[in-house]
């Protein structure tokens, strides 16, 4: 019979020291009881502390991925933000689908900059915009609804607007566009849920088609299958949330160790020199996201090739032009849907990660907006007057950044509240 040795650690009370023998089933039963106690204890502790609540995205057959409804999220990767998602998966309190009387609804579609999980809800520019408009236009109740989801590309924003935002009968759709819009439209092999997104293509006439190949392929991978199998745990277990963050940290550590070992004793190399990619134009294009936090380097490494920053930026600009017809087609589709729903569309420029902007992309957005007759404003230059570390965390807005951005867009949005939708 299997035996377990047991003892009590008692440095100060040696009279209690004893060694007893337990049978294997006593050992098993006791371990089971302790495990149950530990699991329940940890779940309670983590729930009270609000930790293990960082995973909130689930696979979605239409959007690629979408927030889990009714999920409480506590993000701490940049600033410390908390959000309670409502039954429709919006980081907002419960909202009725039918618009209340004397209410003006603005649906803000976008990515993580709009979602703003780095700050409290009351600090986001969406919330602040609602407050500012109510002050400016007394007598009307403004509901600025946040439809932002981290990692969404422009096509996903369009789908979210079409499938969800219009259910709330918005009077205006506000589309903040960022300087990596073209970059995230580029189909890439999925390395996780947020890159297993649907991709959009435009034919010569500007007709859009959606391709779910990457999404479907990823779901069949071991990571995809694991995510589908663990859906319940991801949604409900705080311990699972902590494990997944710990695993990510462990993988980061492993990566750091590999790099660090190569140059033992030197500082662990950082990310700016390692871009993966092939040599064709589209893959040479890099987002400003990747080099937002560092000073512009003189050279870049793409695969095993070192290229000068001039050729790097040339390649990026070529990539933007290469993909622009798709951006153009998606914005046209958004506008068409808005006209069908009798809703105004307004575009505003958002800065890129950490405040970096891309003049070419902004110019092309303006060109598209002008052509389609969509009001467009770029007020990001005003943000550049403030110290970067006060306005941004590594990538996203700080509370001050949200406050400043609200001030930049509130009058522009106000001017367009009752403008007529223009047919392209």
């Amino acid at each position: 019979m299997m035996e377990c040795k047991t003892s009590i650690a008692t440095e100060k009370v040696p009279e209690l020291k004893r060694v007893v023998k337990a049978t294997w089933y006593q050992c098993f039963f006791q371990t089971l009881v302790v495990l149950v106690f530990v699991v329940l204890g940890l779940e309670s502790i983590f729930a009270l502390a609000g930790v293990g609540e960082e995973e909130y995205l689930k696979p979605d057959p239409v959007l690629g991925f979408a927030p889990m409804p009714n999920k409480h999220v506590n993000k701490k990767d940049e600033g410390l933000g908390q959000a309670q998602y409502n039954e429709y998966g919006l980081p907002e309190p419960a909202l009725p689908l039918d618009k209340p009387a004397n209410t003006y609804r603005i649906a803000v579609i976008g990515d993580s900059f709009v979602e703003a999980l780095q700050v409290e809800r009351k600090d986001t520019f969406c919330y602040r915009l609602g407050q500012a408009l109510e002050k400016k236009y007394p007598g009307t109740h403004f509901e600025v609804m946040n439809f932002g989801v981290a990692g969404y590309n422009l096509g996903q924003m369009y789908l979210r607007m079409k499938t969800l935002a219009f259910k709330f009968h918005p009077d205006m759709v506000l589309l903040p566009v960022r300087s990596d819009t073209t970059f995230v439209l580029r189909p890439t092999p999925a390395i996780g849920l947020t890159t297993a997104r649907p991709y959009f293509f435009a034919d010569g006439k500007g007709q859009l088609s959606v391709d779910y190949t990457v999404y479907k392929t990823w779901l069949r991978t071991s990571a995809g299958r694991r995510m589908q199998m663990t859906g319940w745990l991801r949604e409900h277990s705080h311990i699972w949330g902590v494990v997944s963050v710990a695993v990510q940290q462990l993988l980061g550590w492993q990566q750091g160790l590999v790099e660090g070992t190569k140059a033992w004793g030197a500082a662990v190399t950082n990310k700016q020199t390692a871009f993966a990619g092939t040599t064709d134009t589209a893959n040479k294009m890099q987002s400003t996201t990747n080099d937002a936090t560092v000073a512009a380097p003189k050279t870049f490494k793409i695969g095993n090739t070192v290229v000068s920053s001039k050729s790097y930026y040339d390649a990026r600009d070529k990539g933007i032009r290469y993909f622009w017809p798709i951006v153009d087609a998606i914005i046209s589709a958004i506008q068409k849907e808005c006209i069908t729903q009798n809703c105004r569309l307004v575009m505003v420029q958002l800065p890129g990660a950490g405040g970096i902007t891309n003049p070419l992309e902004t110019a092309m957005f303006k060109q598209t907006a002008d052509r389609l007759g969509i009001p467009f404003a770029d007020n990001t230059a005003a943000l550049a007057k403030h110290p970067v570390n006060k306005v941004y965390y590594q990538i996203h807005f700080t509370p001050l950044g949200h406050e400043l951005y609200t001030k930049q867009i509130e009058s522009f949005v106000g001017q367009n509240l009752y403008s007529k939708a223009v047919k392209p």
Partner: protein
Amino acid sequence: MLFSSISYFIFFPIVFALYWIAPLRARRALLLVASYVFYMSWIPAYGLLIMLLTVLNYFIGWSLESFRKHSKVLLVFGLIVNLGTLCFFKYTNFLLANLSDLLRAVAPWMPFSFDASSIQQVNIILPLGISFFAFEFIHYICDVYKGSKAIRSPIDFALFAAFFPSQIAGPIKRYQDFIEQLPNEAKFDPQLCNQGIVLLLQGLFKKIALSDNLALLANQGFNSANTALATSDAWIAAMAFTFQIYFDFSGYTDMGRGSALMLGYKLPDNFNFPYLATSMSDFWKRWHISLSTWLRDYLYVPLGGGRCSPLRKYYNLMVTMLLGGLWHGAAWHFVAWGGLHGGLLIVNHKYSDFVERRPWLQHAHAHPVGKVLSITLTFMMVLVSWVFFRAETVTHALSMLKSMFLEFEASSAVLSMSTIAPLCVALSVYSIYALLNRMHDNSSFVFLRPRLSLTIPARAALYLGVAFAAVGLAPSAPSPFIYFQF
């Protein structure tokens, strides 16, 4: 390699397993190699520094024992080597910066022109733990000079110098205690190992779940102290730092002691509930005990200690504390911190003399209410002194104190309370654990001692749960150990 890093939790189990598998004669050498790997994982070149100092001090100790006639010369030589190394790495830039400031200040009165800006700072990276191993070497040569036996085995001496659980931030070991444990390393003691794991986990929880969460609050307050800080914010930040430094340093010590225990070595304890001290002298008997006893034995007593005139005694006390402050870091705010403690200790001594002559005051102090008042007053003094320790400069500390005491604004404008939930939960969990632990050790609560002993798998599950709780409650950005910079 930080004790709380993933690297350490891979490094240590490997060392632990190899150590207990290895034949007896190879264990010390293995520990020595592991200690050098641990140290050199930071900057490999500085492994040579510690090696060189070890060789020099080994020969100085051996020579002190062999050539007693020249012992004074050898002692001075040893002190110059160790203090010189410490001063070069730690105080060169401090001295240069102060010299530059001084020359700039007196330039108008100088008969010749001198460009103070020509005094450039030197690019020196402070080797990790240099203050600690320099003090251990000084203790060694001083004790051998006084007649203690030198360590004969070079490997034993090198292991004493480099022993990784205490290498970076102490506790400052006494070589006599360490060496006498070496022959006892033969057998694996499960009780000792279990205590080691408990200490390791306790330290991990203190560091990552408590100290790192407190650091978020303290940093927000102190990093914005140059701007207007509300009174409540200033107090919260000062309070947060007071507990941050305790959990950080005692957590580090627990992890070091735990690791050492698992390898069969006992390291001295460094803390004994310091914030329950009833006076400043009591505080220094409970806070960083290995440093305070070192300062007493190798600085305060050689200066004359307390067995001299009161004025001389206070002078000795002040010099000891000022140098103790400077030991913590090459900056004036550390000196101010030391000076403040020196001043408070002098007041404490004076007051003790005053109380001694008045029995009614003695009774008042012995009363529970008197004790609570003494603990509160001592805590407040310690809290205020930590402001000098944490601030970047003396001016910064004074502006923080101004916010705390002179500008009464109640609003909390700077601190974000969204960090508070994990901290509150971690503090509650730790308080319950600490209370149960104290009750367990107290004979009045013998009935609480567990009747059921846990099997090894059950214990492993429990320990895994504690480690997991610590990891879960930790903030995403870990802070380095505060005492690493010293």
